């Protein structure tokens, strides 16, 4: 791997890590769509800030541009509070307008600057590493890498320092308020963190991959664990792993790095959705099937128990009549009967009639007692 390639990979992984921190909390707070809005409207912030401080990537410019994220969320909240527009629609109204204004301003005002329209949607990882950090005549690698590493460290430090505040304000805002934590301060702190990250990552990965990095790894991680600490760690790890996997694919097929990373994240999510040991769809399907069989065995035992007074040989306990009485298929009846027999819950009075064993009777009594 050439040093340029290494720099591209390192930048992609750093951006993913920086995005995972606010992203994990946005997902827990059901604010994924807010990430979508912010990652678009910061474009307008970038353009406006660039007009005031024409130094792309300067910390002042990044901070100024980030205020647009706060403005976006304030706008959404205000619209929601009128009671006339719901939150999802408020998001859908606010961000296309602000984003379009940004695009329009770019095309009108900054024809020859570092901003151009194609970068807006996907950014350009490869291009972004050509901007070098130089101090006193010496080169220190790509500027974006340093910028994103700084943002990641800042996000991480804030998340560690305020992890209790973030946790309580997310889980139970009312308790937070009674403990002296302001839920709205936490809310806007997180919004600002999201905005700074989105602004910082804009030139390297653009808005779509920022949303991907913020939302997909946390959602995937949530399917794998129920512990908050492990969820946060996994979000970071899965983001970095997708960056690595995507980079490798892009290198192999000589395609877009950002596109490949997005694709890897999507694929990773689908695999986990299907195969997650506890929450995955496959595990769920197995569980349901097992539950269906277990329940059927109990139902058979109770059915025989309820009709035991009618004598040993009636239609109710005739093996061949279970289909009609319990609504089972012939195949299913045979399976359940065999299973219950193997467990010693029922016995065959003769070839056709079924009866309960003493174990089965006890079990039925217990089940009916509740």
């Amino acid at each position, binding site marked *: 791997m050439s040093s340029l390639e290494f720099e591209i990979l390192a930048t992609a992984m750093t951006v993913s890590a920086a995005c995972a921190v606010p992203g994990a909390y946005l997902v*827990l707070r*059901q604010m994924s769509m807010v990430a979508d809005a912010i990652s678009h409207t910061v474009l307008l912030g970038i353009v406006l800030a660039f007009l005031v401080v024409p130094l792309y990537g300067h910390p002042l410019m990044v901070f100024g541009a980030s205020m647009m994220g706060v403005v976006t969320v304030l706008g959404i909240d205000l619209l929601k509070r009128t009671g006339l527009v719901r939150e999802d629609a408020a998001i859908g109204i606010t961000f296309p307008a602000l984003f379009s204004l940004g695009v329009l301003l770019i095309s009108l005002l900054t024809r020859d600057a570092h901003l151009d329209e194609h970068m807006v949607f996907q950014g350009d990882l490869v291009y972004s590493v050509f901007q070098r950090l130089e101090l006193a005549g010496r080169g220190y690698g790509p500027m974006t890498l340093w910028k994103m590493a700084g943002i990641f460290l800042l996000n991480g430090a804030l998340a560690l320092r305020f992890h*209790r*505040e973030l*946790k*309580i304000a*997310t*889980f*139970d805002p*009312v*308790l937070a*308020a*009674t*403990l*002296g*934590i302001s839920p709205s301060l936490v809310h806007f702190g997180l919004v600002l963190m999201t905005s700074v990250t989105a602004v910082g990552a804009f030139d390297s990965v653009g808005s779509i991959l920022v949303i991907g990095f913020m939302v997909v790894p946390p959602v995937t991680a*949530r399917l794998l*664990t*129920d*512990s*908050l600490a492990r*969820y946060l760690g996994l979000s970071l790890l899965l983001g970095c792993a997708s960056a690595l996997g995507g980079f490798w694919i892009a290198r192999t097929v000589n395609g877009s790095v950002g596109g490949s990373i997005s694709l890897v994240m999507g694929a990773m999510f689908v695999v986990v959705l299907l195969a997650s040991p506890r929450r995955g769809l496959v595990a769920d399907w197995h569980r349901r099937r097992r539950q269906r069989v277990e329940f059927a065995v109990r139902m058979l035992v109770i059915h025989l128990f309820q009709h035991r007074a009618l004598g040993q040989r009636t239609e109710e306990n005739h093996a061949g009549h279970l289909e009609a009485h319990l609504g089972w298929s012939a195949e299913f009846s045979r399976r359940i009967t065999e299973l219950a027999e193997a467990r010693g819950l029922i016995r065959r009075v003769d070839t056709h009639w079924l009866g309960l064993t003493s174990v089965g009777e006890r079990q039925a009594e217990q089940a009916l007692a509740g």
Partner: protein
Amino acid sequence: MQTMPPALEVNDLTVAYRDKPVLWDVDLQVPTGVLMAVVGPNGAGKTTLIKAVMGLMQPAAGSVQVFGEPAGRQQVRRIGYVPQRTSVDWDFPTSVRDVVAMGRYNRGGLWRRADRRDAERVARALATVDMEDLADRQISELSGGQQQRVFLARALVQDSDLYLMDEPFQGVDAVTEQSMVAVLRRLQEQGRTVLAVHHDLRTAPAYFDWVALLNVRLIASGPMATAFSECNLRETFGGSAPEWTTPPATTAA
């Protein structure tokens, strides 16, 4: 002898949603050391009363005093609040033990890390509400009654002097309800005050010793034996007779 200030004193409290009053000029005194039920029909402003005391809703008029001092940030910290269990996201990735531990977060400031005493306190509270076996359970796996008990345990570790509970028995089975009432009694024995929104008029006299009857305005409040009269109940609930068609037993606990 110095008279003790009431645990909670509400004066002329009016809370409105736009121009629709939810609470109309409520004056309520909750003496220290009582178990008081707040009773009233749906939309009577019971939850609003609690939220206004907690400073979670801005009153249009009136004042709230907690232990003789105006309810501000400092005083609110002396209150343990048990919200309706639907008020939080139970799918949050955390354990029962951790939720209860949240009640200790205000001890000695947010910088302080949880220590062994906190852990012991949390374990004891979980044992008090019969939840120690489920301490490491993910909270989404709990039943409604178990969720309610987690909230009660969390309030217990707060070591508050005044507890405000919004329907603590919601979704709880009869056996659990009895053990939760025993927990409330123990709080009372320790000199603490409990104000709880309660829906079941049949059990109110047995569980609580004081009552406030609320229907936007305060109809009556005082010891169960005097305030929980059929006349007051009729005024609170209007003509439509609720569960008290047989006159409620006025044997205060």
